[in-house]
């Protein structure tokens, strides 16, 4: 899994965020404040420009650049959460990137920064099952499917973290926008890294 392949993963993630921007925003309007699609798209558009201008040499440098750019450009809760995730991936990436290992580090970072637990209706609900699938030796596609299943499982949940938590019972009935964008990250990995795990 070389830097070129990982860069393709990030670019595919950016493309999927742009393509699903309106859906993410619609989900966030239902239970949050309606800006998840716009904010993530702004951040990943900036990431793509930075990678165009300064191609990264190592997986670690790539993840660090992505993390710092997201922290600087996204704002809201998603900026620090995705930013922290990529910074932790940078720290966990050695010469050979083990996707299970770096995504486990990303998950730990998101938990430490956001102080949420599984079942709180957050991005963790999609990321944790994907990490578990990879740790069990399953394919990246299986991990993406696990993330999608985790995302769908957030639909009936009542949010306990983030802005959706203010709605109480009324937050049930909609998929969590963060779990939805995490699923796009895993879908992008399956598309671009699928044969290389």
């Amino acid at each position, binding site marked *: 899994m070389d830097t070129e392949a990982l860069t393709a993963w990030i670019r595919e993630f950016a493309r999927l965020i742009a393509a699903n921007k309106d859906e993410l925003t619609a989900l966030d309007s239902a239970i949050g404040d309606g800006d998840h699609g716009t904010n993530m798209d702004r951040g990943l558009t900036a990431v793509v420009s930075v990678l165009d201008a300064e191609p990264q040499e190592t997986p670690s440098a790539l993840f660090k650049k992505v993390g710092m750019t997201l922290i600087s450009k996204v*704002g809201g809760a998603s900026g620090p959460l995705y930013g922290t995730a990529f910074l932790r991936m940078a720290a966990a990436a050695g010469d050979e990137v083990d996707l299970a290992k770096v995504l486990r580090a990303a998950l730990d970072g998101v938990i430490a920064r956001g102080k949420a637990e599984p079942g709180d209706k957050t991005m963790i609900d999609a990321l944790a099952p994907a990490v578990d699938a990879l740790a069990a030796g399953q394919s990246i596609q299986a991990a993406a499917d696990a993330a999608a299943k985790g995302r769908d499982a957030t639909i009936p949940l009542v949010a306990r973290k983030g802005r959706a*938590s*203010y709605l109480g019972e009324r937050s049930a009935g909609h998929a969590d926008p963060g779990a939805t964008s995490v699923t796009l990250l895993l879908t992008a990995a399956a598309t671009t890294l699928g044969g290389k795990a």
Partner: protein
Amino acid sequence: MKKLINDPANVISDALLGFAAAHPELRVDHENRIVVRGDAPVRGKVGLVSGGGSGHEPLHAGFVGPGMLDAACAGEIFTSPVPDQMVAATQAVDGGAGVLHIVKNYTGDIMNFELAAEMVAADSGTQVVSVVIDDDVAVQDSLYTAGRRGVGATVLVEKIAGAAAEEGRSLGEVADVARKVNSYARSMGLALTSCTVPAAGKPTFDLPETEMEVGIGIHGEPGRRRVPVAPADEIAEMLVGPILSDLDFTGGDGVIAFVNGMGATPLIELYLMFNEVTQILAKAGIPVARSLVGPYITSLDMAGCSVTLLKADDELLRLWDAPVNTPALRRGV
């Protein structure tokens, strides 16, 4: 969507250009989107930095100036600013006595200010203390949520802590005053209409002509419950009732009563509401010591209001009365 804008993508930068032109006494850093007091850093004075998503004007940039904030960071609409902005603001106002971050309790604001404080600590000797504002009684069960939201009390904290800093108090003392205001203040809001984020182009939620949303926040997020539109005296009860049952406001030196407009409600209705609020307080035996009426912490073009009550004592009243010279609040100068 009918708005006085050019391009939805440029609303904040275009507005900051106008803000800078209208207030040459302040410094606007357009690249970092921060507004800084013209004479910052003030040597020996604790610097006050706040910030948050845009769309709540005049909060926060309108409260930058002597007697209140030293700097404000403007995020995207309803989105927390990023750590780079907070770091730049902190460095710009550090006069050697430390910097207080005033943070409204929203997940994004908390995390971005936390990252900024970590970056400042790693980079420089500037001492930073954060105070989190969480006065919204509409959020009931804080054990299983992100906690109560920071709303109207933010304006009162910025004014009163600003006066304490101006007196030359230490960082710890200014932080204590800010925490005291937060712990003695409670708020509750109501929306008559939704609001329209320029980038979204349509109202954040649908609210029929005959209904209103009680327990609203300031980001166009729906409130706790939806009820039929009611006369102002009943609305005042819906807002003041939960506030009074959350904190005992009797036995002090009265309250600072703040009726805030959400952006699209005219002042005549806010004064009408203020009258209803004072009548309820009179019945409860709570004197109104000071008042603030107007749109100070808004939610774009939302119609509606919020009520904030602050249980006052001699110290808080004296700091409230101290001179202040900002675009949105000016007296005694």
